[in-house]
């Protein structure tokens, strides 16, 4: 998946996470995460973000994530939504998610 513009998904509500993705040409995935549960779950949230982007074939991106206590499934959903928006792609491949 090729990101072509900024894509954002999620809200600042409790139990949600707001994810903003920006395209990059090189340098891998750089994540700036702030979380209300940073101490306990920061590494786990970052791992889920990375894994989801890998599954989507996004090798290079800047990620800005503001977490308000989201479950892993919510993190995955918001990253996917942001990525598809950033790629301007609406051909969702539900079979491989």
């Amino acid at each position, binding site marked *: 998946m090729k990101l072509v513009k900024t894509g954002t*998904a*999620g809200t600042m*509500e*409790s*139990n*949600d996470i707001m994810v903003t993705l920006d395209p990059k040409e090189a340098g891998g995935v750089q994540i700036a995460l702030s979380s209300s549960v940073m101490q306990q779950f920061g590494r786990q949230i970052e791992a889920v973000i990375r894994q989801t982007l890998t599954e989507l074939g996004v090798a290079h991106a800047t990620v800005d994530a503001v977490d308000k206590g*989201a*479950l*892993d*499934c*919510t993190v*995955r*959903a*918001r990253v*996917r*939504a942001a990525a*598809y*928006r950033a790629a301007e792609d*609406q051909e*969702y491949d*539900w*079979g491989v*998610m």
Partner: protein
Amino acid sequence: MERKRLRRSMMFVPGNNPGMIKDAGIYGADSVMFDLEDSVAITEKDAARFLVFQALKTLDFGKKEIVVRINDLNSGLGIQDLEAIVRAGVHVVRLPKTDSAEDVVFCEKEIERIERAAGIPVGTTGMMAAIESANGVLNAKEIAHSSDRLIGIALGAEDYVTDLKTTRSDGVELLFARCMILNAARSAGIDALDTVYSDVNNEQGFIEEATLIKKLGFDGKSVINPRQIDPLHKVFMPSEKDLEKARAIMAAIADANAKGSGVASLNGKMIDKPVVLRAQRMLALAEVSQTDEGEEV
């Protein structure tokens, strides 16, 4: 898909709210309905679809029936909703704005196509049809008989009263639709589910409406707030007096059978088949209700 089960309460949960989705299973509703339609802004349809998809694949809602209300299939959004939620293993798809049997058949074909593509046994996914227009009400019988996947039909009153050029008041405006939907459902052997009561702060009004639809014969009602679940279940719970009578009827039947008599009576009145059926239904409902309440604790 479980065709027959307890459906006193079907709780709407906005599909783009992770907090509400996370907690949806803890309030004791018989069915939880994630909404991708009216409660989701048009700009967030994709995000809500991803969220509900991931929730269905990940979260454990126990024995709850999981329903998803999709967008109108004519909107272009509904097919994408189906692609996601059928693959995620939803129990029941709620089709909104069902005007005719053809709407159900079209939706069923799409579900079957996706089940085949995903390697899901055909027929796994159930359906329910929400009737929200004068046309839909007049076609209720054909709609109710249009697919073996249907577990029930429901009234969506807000759009319906707008179509009728009226507004919701004391319920008289919904009587014809309710009776049509109920009789259509019974004719097809499926459940009849009533519309939402929007004024969450008016518990008395809610209880009165729930009492009315139970008297009519409905199986249950949609709710929009967890606070409505308990009062609704209480309305559907048979009274101890009714249960005592039902037990006495069943005891009289057992006694007559033991004596080899083909005719049973209680307090001098003959017990015929419909009386026995009602008693059996009541005892079954009480038993399931009590088991269900126990599991919620």
